[in-house]
């Protein structure tokens, strides 16, 4: 029997807003399969987002859902998690939302190691506003505000998360659809702040400006650049040139924030 996604989708809320060829739907399906695998309870799970195409995801999901302001998902979610640590809190959003306007909240959620999972759909562009360059747009790429080529260097989201203190960092791609749910499930199970970056595509505002002839070509690029961390161990520096590592990139056990705060409460009550 095929997987029943409808169990987790709010009735009447589809179709979604995403363009044909956009990978966000693939990520949503991966998230749903991960939630199903782990048996998370709908009433006990909050899905929180910021602003942008990817941030419309919670509206379709039959959970406690919070569509916040641009960049603020991590800060709202921190309030939810602190107030009710027994809830599962999952954040979703795009690269601009998470690493530009939301950059400060992002790094501090990593630093606190608060037990939440952040899924960043990185399509290298501000899609909803029509294709302006984001902190994840590659240098030289074209966007509506970099018609002469992007002068900015791009963030490596995973390195940023690791550097800021996240204790579980993974990367997948929208092409490798069947890997997404496994990465997300492992991230949710991890006790601490977990980040899953999914390399995604925006054919409408990024692809057409950057000489991708089709969605298939964009998806094939994701297939071509992705190298699983295990495979990379056996590859030379030359072979890894231009490649992007996928899989679980970093994992460590460290006290998480709400558990630490529970100790604060114990000490204060003495």
């Amino acid at each position, binding site marked *: 029997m095929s997987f029943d996604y409808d169990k987790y989708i709010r009735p009447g809320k589809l179709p979604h807003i995403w363009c044909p060829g956009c990978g966000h739907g693939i990520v949503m399906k991966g998230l749903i399969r991960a939630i199903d695998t782990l048996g998370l309870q709908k009433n006990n799970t909050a899905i929180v987002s910021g602003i942008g195409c990817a941030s419309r995801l919670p509206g379709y999901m039959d959970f*406690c859902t*919070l569509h916040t302001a641009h960049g603020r998902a991590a*800060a709202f979610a921190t309030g939810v998690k602190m107030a009710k640590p027994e809830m599962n809190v999952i954040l979703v959003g795009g690269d601009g939302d998470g690493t530009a306007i939301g950059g400060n909240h992002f790094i501090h959620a990593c630093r606190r190691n608060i037990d939440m999972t952040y899924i960043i759909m990185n399509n290298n562009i501000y899609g909803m506003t029509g294709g302006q360059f984001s902190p994840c747009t590659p240098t030289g790429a074209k966007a509506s505000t970099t018609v002469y080529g992007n002068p900015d260097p791009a963030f490596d989201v995973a390195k940023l998360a690791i550097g800021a203190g996240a204790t579980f960092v993974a990367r997948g791609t929208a092409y490798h659809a069947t890997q997404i749910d496994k990465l997300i499930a492992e991230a949710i199970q991890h006790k601490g702040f977990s980040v899953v970056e999914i390399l995604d595509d925006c054919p409408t505002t990024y692809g057409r400006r950057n000489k991708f002839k089709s969605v298939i070509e964009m998806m094939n690029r994701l297939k071509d650049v992705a190298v699983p961390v295990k495979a990379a161990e056996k590859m030379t520096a030359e072979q890894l040139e231009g490649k992007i590592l996928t899989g679980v990139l970093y994992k460590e056990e460290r006290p998480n924030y709400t558990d630490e705060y529970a100790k604060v409460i114990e000490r204060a009550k003495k």
Partner: protein
Amino acid sequence: MAKKVAFLQGNEAAAQGALYAGCTFFGGYPITPSTEVAEVMSVELPKIGGKFIQMEDEIGAMASIIGASLTGAKVLTATSGPGLSLKQELIGYACIAETPCVIVNVMRGGPSTGMPTGPSQSDVMSAKWGTHGDHPAICLTPASVQELFEETVRAFNLAEKYRTPVMIMPDEIVAHMRERIVFPEPGELEVINRTAPSVSPAEYKPYDTSFGDVPPLAAFGTDYRFHVTGLNKGQDGFPTTKAAWVQDEEERQVRKVEGNVDDIVQFEEYELADAEVAIVAFGSTSRSARFAVNEARKQGIKAGLFRIKTFWPFPEKQIAALAGKVKAFITPEMNLGMCTGEVKRCAEGKAPVHGIFRVDGEPINPGQILEKIKEVK
């Protein structure tokens, strides 16, 4: 049994008032001259199993309290001018998402960094117009340490009752002075909690106006699942751009406050019955005004004080009525005419309004007001 009495700083009293009201979550960011509120909450909240978090910035602090409020907690943050400017983004979010929360804003000199340790009353317009778009605004301006405690309790009550952010804005003098305070016994002051849904989870809609202008609010992590957004939303909480509905919704959100002014607006009338000169003042300035009224009365001048306790919604009716009775208004304030403009608007030319403005970080003293009384009587 004798009541508990203490010698308390204003900011400490605000924190104690929040705890009395049942606050269990504080999200903050350090800023002079409001920091003591955060300090007290960081000590007291964990003792009762509550949560204190110092966030990475002012916006994050505001975000955290909205998130916590949606789980059912009574929530507080504290800030001052520059922090208020940053928080405005999400104060608007709390307005449209109709999430109860309380913001203590201690008024210091501005704009920008201004005079961080100097008193001011120049944030009162920010309380109403600071965040973009039409929205309800409630702002309380207490004048003593005792009142800061009691009005903080009331701020929580109004936030919970009307599902909206409420600002309590002591000027720096009220926030930092120390005075005797008599703690109310538990149960002595009314404490209001938000209305919980009376329908089943399947029937629940977070903005169901069939329950009136203030729909019941469920909590995340209970049997109720719902969606919250900063977009214009339908009764079910999901985004809508349906013109007629959005118009109704915007009007309802403002009506929650503007339609209940008699429940929200509080003020004090002092020696106004036969007054020819009415001073309209709030916060610490009203204390100088009261002194000036007493002095004027000793000299045979019929002066009185209308003390604003609720700045927003503005006591329009009361000022309009006074305008028909007095010869002149005097409006002393630590800004360049914010309250004065409102009094003029309400007086509609029936009585002249004479402002006394001070923005040099010094309080307005009684002598300055007395001088003006003699000048305009």
